């Protein structure tokens, strides 16, 4: 697997050793059950050591893994009968953002998310999950559609950031993001946001205003990338690991800052190790939170959303 990270090496080595022994045992007929059980115990310990106290930088690495499940993978497992819709009706269809409709436990929902690629070709098509303005405008179109038909909106956030290119600027990247913040803050239907991978600055926030905002345990969310911060601070992008250590970008950090409502646990090693169980945790969260939000009258819903945003920040 090319998803192995440095700190995972001992785990992977031991896993393959156990595999070899099992093979040998079945081929040769020698009983190695005791030996294998001892090694399995050891593996559990090593895994706990490796995964339970991940540094911020290790989480950054996990959040960015190509194997990490993307929006469409979660949608497939969580949303029944998903139909994808395309285009912003103004300029183009941006493949870095996907959206459409389906049902969640019988309730019609609109689902929108950043979409990264699963391989190089796919990533070129998806622009590595970095949207242009038309992506944000497509998202807004689908949100307004959800408002009209009184469907709640489920948002998946997973982007390194809004694309920093010439055409993105020409077509108003800043305005597109700003307008989403403006409209999402007063959208007359519930919005639940789940950060599933990278929450890259304004490009993430443009899909990130909601009545509930939660993050997967190993996802990250920050105002600037660790590489960006380290090149500003120390003129050296290779010190990103140090930068990640000071910028407080983990799910737990954001929970402590009251920026998010919940951290959703991932399987040991990361969401990609067990996509089914991660999907089912997300689904449980949605099913638990949505009915309460849908029962609120719209004015209260929007008032609560405003107060949530209103409480962001700290001063003396």
């Amino acid at each position: 697997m090319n998803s192995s990270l440095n700190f995972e090496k001992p785990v992977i080595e031991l896993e393959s050793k156990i595999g070899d022994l099992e093979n040998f045992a079945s081929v040769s007929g020698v009983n190695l059950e005791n030996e294998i059980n001892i090694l399995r115990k050891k593996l559990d310990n090593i895994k706990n050591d490796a995964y339970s106290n991940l540094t911020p930088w290790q989480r950054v690495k996990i959040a960015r893994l190509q194997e990490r499940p993307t929006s469409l993978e979660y949608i497939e497992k969580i949303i029944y009968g998903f139909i994808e819709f395309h285009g912003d009706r103004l300029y183009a269809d941006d493949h870095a953002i996907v959206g459409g409709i389906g049902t969640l436990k019988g309730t019609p929902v609109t689902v929108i998310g950043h979409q990264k690629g699963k391989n190089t070709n796919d990533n070129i098509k998806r622009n590595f999950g970095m949207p242009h303005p038309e992506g944000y405008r497509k998202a807004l179109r689908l949100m307004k559609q959800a408002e009209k038909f009184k469907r709640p909106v489920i948002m998946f956030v997973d982007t390194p950031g809004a694309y920093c290119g010439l055409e993105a600027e020409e077509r108003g990247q800043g305005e597109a993001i700003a307008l989403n913040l403006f409209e999402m803050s007063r959208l007359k239907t519930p919005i639940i946001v789940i950060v599933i991978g990278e929450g890259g600055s304004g490009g993430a926030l443009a899909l990130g205003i909601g009545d509930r905002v939660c993050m997967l345990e190993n996802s990250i969310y920050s105002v600037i990338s660790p590489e960006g911060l380290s090149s500003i601070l120390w003129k050296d992008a290779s010190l990103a690991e140090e930068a990640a250590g000071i910028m407080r970008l983990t799910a737990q950090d954001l929970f402590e800052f009251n920026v998010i409502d919940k951290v959703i646990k991932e399987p040991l090693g990361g969401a990609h190790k067990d996509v089914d169980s991660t999907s089912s945790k997300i689904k449980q969260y949605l099913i638990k939170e949505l009915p309460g939000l849908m029962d609120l009258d719209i004015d209260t819903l929007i008032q609560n959303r405003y107060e949530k945003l209103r409480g962001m920040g700290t001063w003396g």
Partner: protein
Amino acid sequence: MIKEILRKKKYGTINVNKTENGRIIPYPKYTKKEKEEKDREVENDLWIRCKGCDETLLKEDIIKTSYVCNRCDYHFRMGARDRINLILDVDSFMEYDVEMKTIDPLDFPGYNNKINKAKEKTGESEAVITGEGRINGLAVVICVMNADFMMGSMGSVVGEKITRAIEKAIEKKRPVIIFSASGGARMQEGILSLMQMGKTAAALSRLSNEGLLYISVLTDPTTGGVTASFATLGDIILAEPKALIGFAGPRVIEQTIRQKLPEGFQRSEFLKERGFVDRIVHRKNLKNMLYKILYIHSLGGEKNE
């Protein structure tokens, strides 16, 4: 006159050097780095070099023209207090939230020190001044960002002061004018800075729901998280000539696309061509333009109801 002599020279960094016999000699040509150092020397003195026409100008003179070059109309960056004096009627300004203090939520290395230096440099407590006042008699709520204070970056205090100002405008049913000048969200406050974008945008959506006017004035530079929040949400968006306006900074874009950006890219005139700015307004006409817009809105539009 000394100024006349200087203007004839080609050098951008001419300074006045008197030899012992009283002759005035210009500086020799410098390398770029030396030139920048000399610029700083010049600018610390009575003189300032115009980035538009390369002339060396008397500071005293450009202050009289509200920091606009009287040769080429280059608009120098302007401090927030000067801006307030330029736009509002004399003695009409009442400042909000003077006491609000910046804190360091991340224990970010060197942040407190940076804040203190910015305070010393600008004499202000943060990167925005907010309050209310009058423009030719018409009452407005006004927020003016200060690019000299940590690049006009938006942290919690900037976001909170702007949000409170907007809420005050809703309460008093007044129009809001925000002068943007910012490098973007303030990295030293991490995610909390990012969230100020959502907070200010939400306050503006409330203002809009109330049918109240918001005029955004973009000044040099308006980039990053400020562009991607309140700066581009104006009912009417004005810009000063040749201001840098964009989401990503030009250097970041050049690194991403690995090519030089065309001349004038991300300047006010470019944004207007692309449809993101209503009007470009020369600083000397700004107060009057704001007044005219405010006046028309003050007449109301409910005849048919």
